């Protein structure tokens, strides 16, 4: 890689067109691993890259991001791109809302279009009980200063005509809780945008560089062993999402994390049809979330597959559930063909909330436990986690995400389901 990262703008586009090539260049490849860094970040997913960006920009540190495979190969490139802050518990309100606010300006901050699309997130209520649950969550949000709107069937028909909320269904729609600023963000662009911005600040992103061990001396970490050799580090951050359970095993810590598959699928592109994001738990088929990508494909997903797995192969039966759930709400989509299906490995914690804390050593940190909802939190997590790693003290925003909360009984269990990630 040569020269500084060019600034992107309409003018730059024009200039690139006139220059006829030569303007565009690789954004982060070609860096060589140095001997030592202030911070080594393990994992070039959204959280690793965002934290590295803030460590360099806000704290002026020398950082490397070591990635086992490729930038964006993990869940940051596999998720269904939904962002929202419609949570129930206060600790989560402020954190997720901080993140949603950052999405609004991220394209500018990174000088990279991440395609934030505030098309709204519609949590459908399919029973009277669902309506009560939605109102409770909505009230909690509004008490925390987060906007949301309860809609009845008629309002939903106006907001999302294609849903035909008033249609006669076996499980009729009662209404919905809608967060208008929620929506989608192009997932790959988030990885690429942070990687590009971090590289421009001098961060070394090294791909094909699996971390295989941690070296310690006198009770502190001194560096990491990698397949490309040993790297010295004053501080180490693990942001390995689905592989965090294994990192625990590597460090001799058993974590409150179970490793589960979540799959998603997309149909062939069709004309614009669905103008928002639908989320619901169908009494017959379980959870479905459904949106239309900018390319026109209907993107959908549902529950976890249900048992520990590192295979990245989804179960057929779960795919059936998701599709049946989708068609129950949008029967007009029944003839559309599914063209791709994939799965990601998720780090499910015992209360469904993340962990951002020290891990065993004073200078080793963990950013994990993102479960199936950690895409939307990337901007907030990156900024807050960088503060923790740089200063050694967790900022207020993430104090509740400490690892010891399970032992002290301060779980953040949104679902109220107890320590079983797949029990519903």
């Amino acid at each position, binding site marked *: 890689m040569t020269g500084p990262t060019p600034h992107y703008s309409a003018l730059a586009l024009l200039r690139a067109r006139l220059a006829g090539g030569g303007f565009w260049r690789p954004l982060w490849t070609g860096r060589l691993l140095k001997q030592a860094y202030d911070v080594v970040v393990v994992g070039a997913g959204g959280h690793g890259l965002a934290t590295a960006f803030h460590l360099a920009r806000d704290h002026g540190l020398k950082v490397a991001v070591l990635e086992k495979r490729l930038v964006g190969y993990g869940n940051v490139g596999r998720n269904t791109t939904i962002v929202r802050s419609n949570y129930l518990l206060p600790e989560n309100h402020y954190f997720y809302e901080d993140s949603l606010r950052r999405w609004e300006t991220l394209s500018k901050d990174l000088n990279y279009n991440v395609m934030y699309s505030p098309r709204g997130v519609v949590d459908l209520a399919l029973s009277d009980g669902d309506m009560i649950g939605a109102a409770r969550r909505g009230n909690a949000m509004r008490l925390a200063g987060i906007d949301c709107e309860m809609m009845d069937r008629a309002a939903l028909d106006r907001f999302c005509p294609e849903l035909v909320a008033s249609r006669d269904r076996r499980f009729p729609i009662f209404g919905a809780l809608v967060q208008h600023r929620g929506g989608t963000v192009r997932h790959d662009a988030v990885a690429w945008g942070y990687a590009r911005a971090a590289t421009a600040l001098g961060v070394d992103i090294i791909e094909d560089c699996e971390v295989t061990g941690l070296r310690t001396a006198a009770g502190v970490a001194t560096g990491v062993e990698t397949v490309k050799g040993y790297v010295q580090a004053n501080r180490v951050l693990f942001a390995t999402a689905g592989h965090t*359970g*294994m990192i*625990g*095993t590597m460090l001799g810590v*058993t*974590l*409150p*994390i*179970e*490793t589960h598959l979540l799959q998603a699928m997309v149909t062939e592109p069709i004309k614009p049809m669905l103008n928002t994001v639908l989320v619901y738990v169908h009494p017959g088929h379980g959870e479905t979330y459904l949106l239309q990508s900018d390319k026109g494909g209907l993107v959908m997903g549902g529950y976890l597959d*249900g*048992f*520990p*797995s*590192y*295979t990245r*192969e989804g*179960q*057929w*039966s779960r795919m059936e559930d998701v599709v049946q759930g989708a068609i129950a709400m949008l029967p007009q989509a029944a003839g559309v063909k599914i063209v791709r299906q994939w799965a990601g490995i998720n780090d499910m914690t*015992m209360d469904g909330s993340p962990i951002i804390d020290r891990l065993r050593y004073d200078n080793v940190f963990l950013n994990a436990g993102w479960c199936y909802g950690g895409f939307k939190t990337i901007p907030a997590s990156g900024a807050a986690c960088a503060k923790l790693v740089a200063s050694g003290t967790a900022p207020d925003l993430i104090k509740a995400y400490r690892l010891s909360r*399970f*032992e002290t009984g301060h779980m953040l269990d949104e679902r109220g389901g107890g*320590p*079983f990630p*797949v029990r519903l």
Partner: protein
Amino acid sequence: MTRLTCPFCGPRELREFEFHKTLPEPGSTPYARVYERVNRLDDSLEHWQHVQGCRGWLLVRRNPSSGAVLETVILGGGAQ
């Protein structure tokens, strides 16, 4: 992985079964037994239930990286 073989009912579709949790390390504290999970890449020892069959509790050894089922034992009834 698409099927599990219940020692009592025979080979059945996976959706008949429900995963419960991985087995804790022997000698774990009560806290660890409830909240911590053993994560192994190639050899996972787990409790499952055949909820839509005989409802028996199973001890299943699996390789979570390949999906291979290594061993299935029905709990209780002297089989263990």
